[in-house]
């Protein structure tokens, strides 16, 4: 790896000094505590700071973080923070790393958030498959509770924060925010209709804030180093860093924390060291993979929310699944759509039957049994399904299919029997 690439890699969240596991003393030795100190010094300044830093929801939405915070902060009474570690989509594996190896960073981030918004219940909502993460956070919490901090926070702000680790149901849909609320209430993760929004009516009717693990992990660093430092981390107009999950047909897949707005080509060829066996790049499935496919002409795109959106796709979770000429698109899309079909909670009929229908048609075409009419049916489904569900699952499934039909129609047609 070139030195200039090495220099900007893993600067903040994934920096080795933070990778201390469930070891409170090691965390406090170098990084920990300073952000909290700053937060306790002036709790009212936190939200304006987050706003000025333009911190965004890094779980896929890119929604301005301060906006949700503000809504919750203005409410009164018991409030909940759900730290969303349900991460389950193909190609995304960043939160898992943060939870397993950086639990104290997360706990401090969640605590700062609670101080900013006056939240007294923190739930670490974690995919049950991540047993190492659950253990690490559990052990880190014990150390946290035994430290002087809870007492100090109560003394300075009057907040007594109650922390809890709750394994999620393991369903993909449980990562959707209202579905997460249902799970925390002990029910099946059916997404709710919005409004009311969680910020006013969440867990058991209390105002609830839901943030992704990566978003929360940014706070200790933001508070410690200030807004200007944070803004300068990003490239172009973007701020902060982003953890990108690189997978697929690249030589070196993995998690890479890079400045927000790093060009896709740097990630693929600089850090990922290019495609396997020197095959040409064919497509990149982004963040989910529930977004429009990027093609080789998009290789220069800066990977931030706006720039990717300009190419009619979305950054999503930061997952980049690179596919080379050696991989067939139809089977890949069939794989993802069948994932969505299996993940549909089934409460909206159009999603339940629509995803299954798409999956079946794709499997038929992918195994050489498809006819021209099947392709027409897929086109038709792409037109009528979007927006027909309560949550965005159906939209994501359609987007990836629709864009593959747009860019790789010839591959579909070659697979047909007639």
């Amino acid at each position, binding site marked *: 790896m070139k030195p200039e690439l090495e220099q900007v890699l893993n600067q903040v969240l994934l920096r080795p000094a933070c990778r201390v596991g469930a070891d409170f003393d090691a965390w406090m030795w170098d990084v920990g505590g300073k952000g909290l100190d700053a937060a306790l010094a002036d709790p009212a300044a936190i939200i304006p700071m987050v706003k000025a830093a333009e911190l965004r929801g890094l779980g896929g939405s890119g929604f301005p973080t301060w906006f949700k915070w503000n809504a919750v902060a203005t409410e009164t009474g018991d409030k909940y923070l759900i730290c969303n570690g349900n991460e389950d989509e193909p190609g995304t594996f960043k939160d898992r790393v943060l939870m397993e190896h950086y639990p104290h960073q997360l706990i401090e981030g969640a605590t700062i958030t609670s101080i900013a918004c006056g939240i007294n219940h923190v739930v670490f909502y974690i995919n049950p498959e991540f047993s190492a993460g659950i253990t690490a956070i559990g052990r880190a919490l014990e150390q946290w509770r035994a430290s002087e901090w809870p007492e100090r926070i109560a003394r300075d702000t009057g907040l007594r924060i109650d922390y809890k680790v709750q394994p999620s149901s393991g369903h993909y849909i449980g990562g959707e925010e209202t579905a997460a609320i249902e799970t925390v209430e002990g029910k099946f993760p059916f997404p709710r209709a919005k409004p009311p929004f969680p910020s006013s009516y969440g867990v058991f009717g209390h105002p609830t804030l839901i943030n992704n693990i990566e978003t929360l992990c940014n706070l200790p660093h933001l508070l410690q180093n200030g807004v200007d430092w944070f803004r300068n981390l990003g490239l172009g107009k973007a701020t902060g860093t982003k953890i990108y999950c690189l997978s697929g*047909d690249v*030589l*070196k897949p993995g998690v890479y924390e890079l400045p927000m707005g790093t060009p896709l080509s740097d990630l693929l060829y600089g850090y990922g060291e290019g495609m*396997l*066996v020197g*095959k040409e790049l064919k497509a990149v499935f982004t963040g989910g993979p529930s977004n429009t496919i990027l093609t080789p002409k998009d290789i220069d795109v800066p990977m931030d929310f706006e720039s990717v959106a300009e190419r009619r796709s979305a950054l999503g979770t930061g997952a980049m699944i690179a596919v080379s*000429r*050696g*991989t*067939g698109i*139809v*089977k890949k899309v069939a*794989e993802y759509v*069948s994932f969505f079909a299996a993940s549909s909670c089934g409460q909206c009929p159009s999603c339940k039957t629509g995803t299954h229908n798409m999956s079946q048609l794709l499997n038929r*075409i*992918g*195994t*050489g*049994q*498809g006819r021209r009419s099947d392709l027409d049916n897929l086109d038709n489904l792409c037109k009528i399904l979007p927006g027909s569900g309560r949550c965005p699952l159906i939209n994501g499934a359609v987007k990836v299919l629709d864009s593959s039909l747009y860019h790789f129609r010839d*591959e579909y047609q*070659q*697979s047909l029997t007639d």
Partner: protein
Amino acid sequence: MVKKVPYDEALKRYKPMAERPLPPSAEIGEDILRTFHPDYISDRCTELTVGANAGDKCHRQLAEILQSDARIDEADLAASVEEETDVLVIGGGGAGCTAALEAARAGVRVMLATKLRLGDSNTVMAEGGIQASVDKDDTPQMHYNDTVKAARGQIDRGLAAQMVTDAPDVIRWLIQQGMQFDLDQYGDLISRRAGGSTAPRVLHYRDYTGLEMMRVLREAVFNSDVEVRDYCPAVELLSDQAGHCAGAVLSSLKSYQFSLVRAKAVIIATGGIGRLHLNSFPTSNHFGAVGDGLVLAYRLGAKLRDLDTFQYHPSGLAYPLHLGGTLITEGIRSAGGYLLNANNERFIDELKPRDSVAAAIIRECLEGRGIDAGDGTCGIWLDTPGLELRNPGIIEEQFPKLLHLGTKCGIDPRTQPMLIHPTLHYQNGGVVINKDGASTVPGLYCVGEVAGGVHGRNRLMGNSLLDIVSFGRRAGLAAAKRSHSSSLRQKRISVEHLSAYRRKLMLANMPLEQKGPILFPEYAKFENDSDYSGLRKNTLRKSTEIAE
């Protein structure tokens, strides 16, 4: 230049004699293997750098194909048909057929895919017989002792014990299938003594025991519910998300179409590597023996063992040249045939284990006591006329296949000796298995020559026919059991393990020019003159050729 005696001159010198005592000088030293056996030529081996056996010793030519790039890409499988079965058997020799039969009889759906036709295998070439301790003075313990002793230490004792214990029942099973054995006047099985054995234990049917076995197994498979796919080599295994074996990609040689066969268990029974012609030796192996199964299993992560040791059968035909490598049964030596050098002297006890005898023949040739067969080939005499003198009529009665070979060579073995030289015969190592033939990858079973550990570094005559039936039956049953108990939920199948393997190859800076499995030996030249387009395309093996 090594001195050799010209063939005609040596033939003139030769006189058939009934008795030839073994001269005291023929006592071999301990170091004959180290000095003369091809396994011990040090620069022929290399260390594997990628895969489950990284760091282990392996023959260079084998390492090249084990660490080769895959023939197919995921994109090649676009629009390929998906099929489903419970147990998929890859390989149509004795081991594959036995496993398929036992699995089918246990009540599961079985598909058997074979590169050529059912029965095109080394099983049919096995001449000498099959070992089983059924004589009244013999025991499985003695059989075990002989097997372990001949193996020169590197043997999985558990597997060897299992095999010798199964042996009497294997014979019973084979007889039940309809196989014939040579019997005495009372109807009892006749046995011969194998090189390296302490008791007569080799049961046989004339000198084409393997052919007879394959005849029966083939009939049994055709009369069972096993679905047979001829001309369908497996070009890759399929894996599920956990990395377990979940089927295979078959490539039709007739149409060059791939099909993805989803299976709950896969049994690889693809045999050995003779046609790689390691160390430029001729081989007794059939045309398809190029190590396909080893390559497939290794890529999926299966552990292999003993990849630096191969068996060179002492009596491969050396003259005439166009039949070079053709096997002459060890049965001749078991029956009392001598080996003679150009001076008409015996130089080793002919019933020593195969590796010692092969090494002794190579020594004779290197030290100028060999007979020139032309074109750089050298050999020594197999004294068939002497055997005939001692036991009149034995060749016609017990070795009809040898007589037939003699006709092809223009030699009557009853009056003229045959010129022989060691021939690459058997792969001693292979995939690590347990007593059920299960490899280290769940869902993947390996039986027969492709598996290792059963024979150590040197196999006894007649133990491989035993091996294929003993472990073939076990693997068939175990695979059926696995598919009975596996969940009904369909797993996602893919060739994703190829990406992982390619990644490792690239990171280790391995050249990616060689494609594997190679399916056919290099000199096959199907790409020019086959009627089947699939066969032509399937024999291309360099990436550049495929691009064209």
